[in-house]
C-alpha cells in the first residue's frame, strides 16, 4: 500500500518535471508558458496576472509542494470576486479554463468506466469462449477462421472498427443516430443503447487478443499432467475442460485483464475520440494539447492510482485462484 502511494507520487513528480523542465531546455520561460493561457490578446498585464495567479512565478519545488499539499489538504484559489475553496483531493485548477480539475475527472470517470466495463464483459466472455473452443478444436475450420478473424481484430485499430461501425449504423442506416453518453442513473436503457457501438469496437480488439491468449493458455494447460489425471479419474470431458483446464488457463488472463482494465480506466482515448465521449482520455488529450499541467497531472495520477488498484485486486484475485500464491 505504501509502495503504491510512493509509486503514484513518483509518477506525479516525473510528470511535473517533464512538463516544466523539457520545455525549459527548449528555452521556454514561465512568462511564455503563461502567455499560452491568455487568449489572443496577450498584453503584458494579463500575462503577469495569469502567471502570478497560477503560481508560475514560484520556484518549481514550491509549485510541486503546493500541488501535493492541495491533494491532501485542499487549497484556496482566487479566480473571481471571492476565494474559492478547492476541497481535497484538490488537483488544482485548469491553467486554461480555471475550472477545478478533480470534479472534471470525477464526472468523466463514469463515462470511461461505462465504456470499459461493458466492453470488458463482452471481450472476456467472447474471447474466452472462442479461445476455449479454438483450443479444443485445434486445427479445425472453426479454429482457423476464428484465429484469422482474431488476427485481423488485433491488427485493426479501434478507430477503424469504430469508424466502420459508425459509418454503417449511424450514418448509413441511422440505427444509432447521434451516439452520445447518457448516465446510467438517469436512463439505463439509453446508457446501454448508446454504448453498444463503442463497446463492440473496443471489445473487438480485446476479445481478439483474449481469444488468442485463452487458446494458447488452454493448449498449454490441456497438456498438463493434472488434466491427464482428471481424465484418468473418469471425469466427463466438460468437467475436465470447464473445471480443471479453464481455471488454470484463466489465471494469466486475470493478470492481463487487470492491467488492461486499469489502463482503460485511465482513458480509452481512441474510443472516446471516435465516439466523441467525454471521458477521462478525452480530458487528458485536451490537457496535453493545451499544455494544461493540472489536467495532465490529475489524469496521470488518477490513472496511475487505478492501475495500481487494479493490480492490487489482481494480486488478491490471484491469491484466491492459486493457493500456491496464498500460502507462500
Amino acid at each position, binding site marked *: 500500500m505504501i509502495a503504491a502511494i510512493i509509486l503514484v507520487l513518483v509518477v506525479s513528480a516525473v510528470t511535473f518535471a517533464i512538463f516544466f523542465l523539457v520545455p525549459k531546455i527548449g528555452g521556454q520561460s514561465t512568462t511564455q508558458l503563461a*502567455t*499560452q493561457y491568455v487568449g489572443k490578446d496577450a498584453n503584458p498585464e494579463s500575462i503577469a496576472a495569469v502567471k502570478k*495567479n497560477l503560481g508560475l512565478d514560484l520556484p518549481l519545488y514550491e509549485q510541486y509542494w503546493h500541488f501535493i499539499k492541495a491533494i491532501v489538504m485542499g487549497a484556496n484559489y482566487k*479566480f473571481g*470576486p471571492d476565494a474559492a475553496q478547492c476541497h481535497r483531493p484538490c488537483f488544482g485548477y485548469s491553467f486554461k*479554463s480555471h475550472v477545478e480539475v478533480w470534479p472534471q475527472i470525477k464526472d468523466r470517470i463514469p463515462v470511461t468506466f461505462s465504456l470499459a466495463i461493458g466492453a470488458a464483459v463482452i471481450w472476456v466472455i467472447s474471447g474466452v469462449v472462442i479461445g476455449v473452443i479454438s483450443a479444443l478444436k485445434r486445427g479445425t475450420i472453426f479454429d482457423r477462421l476464428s484465429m484469422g478473424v482474431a488476427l485481423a481484430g488485433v491488427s485493426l485499430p479501434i478507430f477503424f472498427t469504430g469508424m466502420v461501425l459508425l459509418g454503417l449504423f*449511424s450514418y448509413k442506416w441511422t440505427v444509432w443516430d447521434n451516439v452520445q453518453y447518457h448516465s446510467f442513473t438517469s436512463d439505463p436503457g439509453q446508457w446501454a443503447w448508446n454504448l453498444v457501438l463503442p463497446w463492440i469496437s473496443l471489445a473487438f480488439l480485446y476479445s481478439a487478443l483474449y481469444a488468442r491468449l485463452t487458446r494458447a493458455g488452454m493448449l498449454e494447460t490441456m497438456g498438463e499432467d493434472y488434466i491427464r489425471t482428471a481424465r484418468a479419474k473418469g471425469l466427463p470431458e466438460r468437467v475436465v475442460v470447464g473445471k480443471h483446464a479453464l481455471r488454470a488457463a484463466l489465471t494469466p488472463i486475470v493478470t492481463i485483464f487487470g492491467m488492461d482494465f486499469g489502463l482503460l480506466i485511465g482513458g480509452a482515448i481512441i474510443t472516446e475520440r*471516435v465516439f466523441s465521449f467525454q471521458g477521462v482520455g478525452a480530458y487528458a488529450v485536451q490537457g496535453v494539447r493545451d499544455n494544461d499541467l493540472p489536467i495532465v497531472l490529475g489524469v496521470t495520477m488518477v490513472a496511475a492510482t487505478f492501475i495500481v488498484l487494479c493490480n492490487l485486486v489482481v494480486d488478491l484475485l490471484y491469491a484466491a485462484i492459486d493457493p500456491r500464491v496464498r500460502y507462500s
Partner: protein
Amino acid sequence: MNSRKATAALALAMAMALGASACSSDSKDDKGGNKPSSGSSKAAKGTDAALTSIVNASDKKGGTVVMENSDVPDSLDPGNTYYGWVQNFSRLYARTLLTFKPAAGKDGLTVVPDLATGLGKASADAKTWTYTIRSGLKYDDGTPITTKDIKYAIERSNFAPEALSNGPTYFKSYLEGGDKYQGPYKDKNPNGIASIETPNDTTIVFHLAKPFADFDYLATFSQTAPVPQAKDDGAGYVKHIVSSGPYKFASYTEGAGATLVRNPQWSKANDPVRTALPDRYQIKFKVDAVTIDNNLLAGNTTVDSGGTGVTPQTQAKVTGPKYKSSTDDSYAGATAYMAINPKVKPFDNIECRKAVEYAIDKVSVQTAIGGSVKGDVATTLLPPTVNGYAKFDEFPTEGNKGDKAKAKDALTKCGHPNGFSVNMTARSDRPAEMAQATAVQNSLKQVGINASIKSYPAGKYFSNFAGVPSYVHEHQLGLMMTAWGADWPTGYGFLDQIVDGSAIKPSGGNNLQELNDPAINKALSDAISNTDAAARTKAWGDIDKMVVDTATVVPLIYRKNLLYRPDNATNVTVTQAYLGMYDYLLLSSSK
C-alpha cells in the same frame, strides 16, 4: 500456415470493403437540396445560396438545433471568450448593447440595436459614447437588467485577467483610466471604473481616453452582455450563466457540451432582433471532425458550430453532384499571409523583400491548400467581406503566378543576384499552413532563394516562437506564415492588431513583421478618430495599401470555408459579421 494468412487477409479485406461502403453511402434516396421543406419555404436553393439569401426559410416554431464542435470553446462565458463562433452563439443567451443584423449577404454587416434602443450617441470627438437600453428587460430569474450589470460585465471581462483572461481587452485599451483600474475582483470600490457611468438603470456612458469611432462595434462584443454582480463568481460563472436572451442553460458540462431551452422571461416584444424559433439547442464539444461531417450528411446534426467548414476528406465528397447544392463556400473573413521581418537580413533591404513578393506563385499556394474552394488568391490584407476592403495589387504578376524576371531584378538591386538562404516558419499542426509554406518554398527556389521551413506547434507559435521578436532575431526567422481574422468586421478591427507599432510585444504579439511605421500608425489613429463613416471606410483601404507597399507582408489567400447545410436545417444564411459561418440567431431546425 498459408491458409491462416489467407483467412486473415480475407477478414481484413471484408472489413475494408465494409468501411468503403460505409464511406460511399450510395443510398438511393435523394438527399439533394431540392426537396421542399416544411413551413413557408422560399425559392432560394442550391450551391452558395446561403451566401446571399436565407435558405429553407421558415417561420415554424419548435425543433431542436443540434450543434457539434470538434474542439472546446475558450469559454461560453460571454465575458471570457475570443472565439468568433461563441460570439455568434452566445447571442442566444446573452444579449448585448448592439449586435449584427441577422440577415443575408452584406446586410449581415449592419450593426443594429439589441438591448439598446439605438446606436451609440457619440460626442463630436468620438470620445464619449452614450447608450440607452430598453426598459422592462429581465434575466431568466426574473430580476431586471440594468446598465450597471453591463458596466460590471465590461469590468470583469476586461480588467480581471487573473480569472478571465481569454477575451479581448479593447475596453481596457480605450477607456479612460483603463490602464490603472484593477478590476472588480481586486478593486473593491463599489463604484467600479469611473469612466463608465450609469446615471440611471437604462443609461450607460463610456468615456474614452482617445477618439474611437468604431465604438459601436465594441458594443456588439459579447462582453457587453449584462452579468449580475451577485451571481458572478469569476471563472466559475460559466457553470451557471444567467441568461438575458431567449434561451437559458438547461445543462452545462465543462468541456462536453450544453443544452439550451427557452427562457420564459424573455419577451419577443422587447427584442427586435431574434425570431427564436427552435425550442432547444444542443451543443456537443470535442466531437471528431469527420464524425461531425458524417453526422451533417446523415442529417443527425444541424450545424458544425465552429463554422470553419468540412474536413478535406468530406470536401471531396460534398463537391460532388450529390451534395454540391447543399454547400456554401463562404469567405472566412480572414487572410492567410506571410510576414517578412525586415530585422532579419537580408530583408532589411526592401528590394530583397520585393524579390519575395514577386517570386511567389500564389496560384500554386492556392492549389496546395485545396483549390478555390479553400480560398481566393489575395493581394490585400483586408479580405473582401471586411468593411473598408479596397481592391489593389501592388506587386502584380501574370495570372498571380509569380514573375521570375521581376524577382531576379529585385534580387540584383538588393545585392544578391544569385539569391540567398532564409528561414521560414509555419505551424506544424496546421496542414494547410504547412502546405502553403511548401508551395512558397518551391516558388522561392525558382529564383534562387532557399527557404528552409521551421515548424512549431500552434499552441506556442506566438507565445514562444514567431511572436517573440528576440527569438525571431536570434534564429533568423525571416519569413513567417500566419493568418488573421478581424475582431470586428472593419478595417480597423482587422489591421490594428497586426500592423500597428503598439502590437509588437515581447511575447504573444501578432505584428510578426515588426512593422512600426509612424505614417501607418498615425493613419490608423487618425482614421479611428474620424466619425465620418464613409471617410473612415476609405481610409482602411488606403492603410492596407500603405502596409503592402512596405513589402513586409505577402497576402496569399482570402480564406474560404466550405460549409454544408443539411436538409433539416432551416433559415440558413451565412453571416459576414462572424467569419463567414452561419448566423446562429436565424438558424432553425425542422427536426
